[in-house]
């Protein structure tokens, strides 16, 4: 069945970085070997760290719960492989701190059978049971923010949701994980949507996809199960189309109020990989043990999309992917919103969607000189949140952080990096804003 697809919708402002997706978007998802030692930080998500349930020396089965949620804004953690807990100690975490982590050594030559849990049926389970099951499965936003999914599915009293949005935009350059998931896990995605619609009470679901993934859009709309109120919408290619506020604006022309959440405009946005994972895990009562990532960039030989066990260290991934000798810059996530790593012992966490590797040839050997702001307003035109990055940058340089928050809505910035990307003076605006937010949060916590 051929479906006609019209591309029209988008949001105002934004930028067009080179996509660089053509090297991996056609490559099927392959499995990745188990690392000799896996590092599982207890805080891989936004919110309170999980509580370890195992002790050093204990043998665990693949899929066994090894840490439980500590409070509502927290999730469980499962063993990505059958093995032995070597120790529970501090380990480097991509957030730049040493955090308590579980070191797991997989058994060599084990059959690595997955421990099954209690299945959850989307038709008979109550919404609260599904929310609990999603928390127990350790599911967080796989798009990169790693916010516990069950928290946004718990609709507050007095609010309602009419539309569920599945985010398959993947606007970040280089990454093709959501693209492959949409092509290869269609049944899981629709299963996930069944759970999500039941929980949120939404009457319809829209899957949002960017125009550079027309094959995925076509296959998904052809595969919609009969009677399911799901539609597929295609957007123009623009960064950051995948940010949930941009997506809601483009799809429904609703604007999330400053400081508000999507539920304030009667919608919930869930990443397509997260939906697929819910649909894959909940019918078996399993927990999240692995995720799809894109390994790409000029610095690696074996580019592709891989199922990578959570906790695999970056160093091991680089070895297996055939990293060249002269690599100089490694990103966890994409180059726009991802994080340059400072230590190759960082593990892959649930929120990491890719590994982009550059060699010395592509990176500047000399640090980029920062010039003064010339008030060209390129950043103002680029900012999808209609903020004034130019003025905020000037204020940040003078450490006038309160003014930034009160008069320029600093906290509406979600650090997409569009302003830094277009700045002809190479001002690291996002870094300034992150520093400002950090200091303001500290001051608030102190008072």
């Amino acid at each position, binding site marked *: 069945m051929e479906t006609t697809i019209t591309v029209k919708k988008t949001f105002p402002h934004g930028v067009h970085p080179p996509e660089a997706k053509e090297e991996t978007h056609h490559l099927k998802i392959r499995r990745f070997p188990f690392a000799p030692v896996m590092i599982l930080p207890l805080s891989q998500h936004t919110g309170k760290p999980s509580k370890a349930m195992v002790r050093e020396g204990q043998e665990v089965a693949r899929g066994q719960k090894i840490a439980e949620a500590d409070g509502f804004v927290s999730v469980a953690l499962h063993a990505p492989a059958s093995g032995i807990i070597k120790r529970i*100690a501090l380990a*480097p975490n991509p957030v*730049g*701190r040493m955090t308590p982590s579980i070191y797991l050594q997989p058994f060599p030559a084990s059959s690595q059978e997955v421990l099954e849990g209690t299945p959850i049926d989307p038709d008979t389970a109550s919404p609260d049971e599904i929310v609990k099951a999603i928390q127990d499965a350790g599911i967080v936003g796989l798009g990169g923010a790693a916010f516990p999914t069950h928290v946004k599915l718990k609709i507050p009293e007095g609010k309602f949701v009419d539309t569920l949005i599945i985010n398959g935009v993947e606007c970040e350059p280089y990454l093709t994980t959501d693209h492959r998931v949409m092509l290869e896990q269609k049944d899981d995605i629709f299963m996930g949507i069944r759970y999500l619609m039941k929980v949120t009470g939404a009457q319809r679901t829209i899957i949002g996809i960017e125009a550079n993934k027309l094959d995925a859009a076509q296959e998904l709309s052809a595969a919609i199960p009969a009677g399911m109120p799901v539609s597929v919408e295609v957007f123009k290619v623009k960064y950051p189309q995948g940010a949930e506020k941009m997506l809601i604006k483009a799809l429904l022309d609703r604007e999330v109020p400053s400081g508000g959440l999507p539920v304030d405009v009667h919608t919930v946005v869930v990443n397509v990989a997260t939906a697929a994972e819910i649909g894959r895990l909940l019918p078996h009562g399993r927990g999240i043990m692995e995720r799809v990532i894109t390994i790409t960039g000029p610095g690696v030989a074996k580019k592709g999309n891989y199922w990578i066990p959570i906790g695999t260290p970056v160093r091991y991934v680089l070895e297996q992917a055939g990293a060249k000798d002269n690599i100089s810059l490694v990103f966890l996530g994409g180059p726009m919103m991802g994080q340059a790593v400072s*230590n190759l012992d960082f593990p892959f966490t649930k929120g990491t969607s890719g590994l982009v590797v550059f060699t010395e040839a592509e990176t500047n050997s000399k640090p980029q000189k*920062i010039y003064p702001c010339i008030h060209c307003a390129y950043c103002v035109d680029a900012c999808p949140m209609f903020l004034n990055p130019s003025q905020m940058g000037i204020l940040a340089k003078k450490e006038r952080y309160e003014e930034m928050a009160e008069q320029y809505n600093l906290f509406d910035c979600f650090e997409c990096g569009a302003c830094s990307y277009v700045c002809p003076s190479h001002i*690291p605006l996002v870094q300034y804003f992150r*520093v400002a937010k950090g*200091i303001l949060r500290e001051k608030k916590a102190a008072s």
Partner: protein
Amino acid sequence: MAVILTAVAALGGITVILAALLILANKKLYVQEDPRIDIVEEMLPHANCGACGFPGCRPFAEALVGGQALPGKCTVSSEEGRVQIAHFLGVDVGAQEKVVARLACAGGINVARNRARYEGLKTCRAAAVVAGGGKGCFWGCLGLADCEVVCDFDAIHMNQFSLPVVDEEKCTACGDCVEVCPKGLFSLHPASHRLWVACKNLEAGDEILEDCEVACTACGRCAADAPGMIKMANNLPVIDYSKNHKTQAPIQRCPTGAILWIEKDGTIVKGRESKKVLRKSTLPDLPT
């Protein structure tokens, strides 16, 4: 002509009336303020640093005159200055122990490695938000001199190894460096405390030595040599300064020199068995 005269007369009249009102208000609403407050404020250093715990020099002067504080609280004044104020007010100086800022890190670039090259804004705060900065040790000094910039008293200088050194003479314990350091390495301590743990690394074991040659490995020898005075907590020695701490005994067997002795002139004494680092050059990056 008549118009001008009317205008001048009207405005002149209003001026006289308002002047009379102001004179009356000045007499009626005059607030009696202790004249000593102005004098004491003049005697204070006008640094408005807040080290005394008051918002600035004027509120501190008010507190001094009101008897809620003693001149000793002002760590910026010279000894004579404090005595002068005490003499003027007829109160005790309030012997205040000299407090200084101390850095709990000894990892200069000659002993501590960078794991990554950091580019971007040249402040410690900014480096700390990018994956914790490039330093191998996650707790260590980033060496981008936020503390040197924030110090109002010219008491902090970066040494040749990109490590801040506090000039204890000039330090007034205002606490600005304590606040600004993103790794929380500074704290205020009485200058009489000579025994000092110059490390914040919470890991145990020798693995950290790959990143920093002078890190504490939590071997616990100092605690064994000074039972009661030093306890190990969170893989770091904690010195109980209420006990007799005027002894160099605990530093002698420290293998890395993480626990050390600071002489009055700022010279650092390391233990007999601590390794001697003579290197002056930057440590090379680790091979990836």
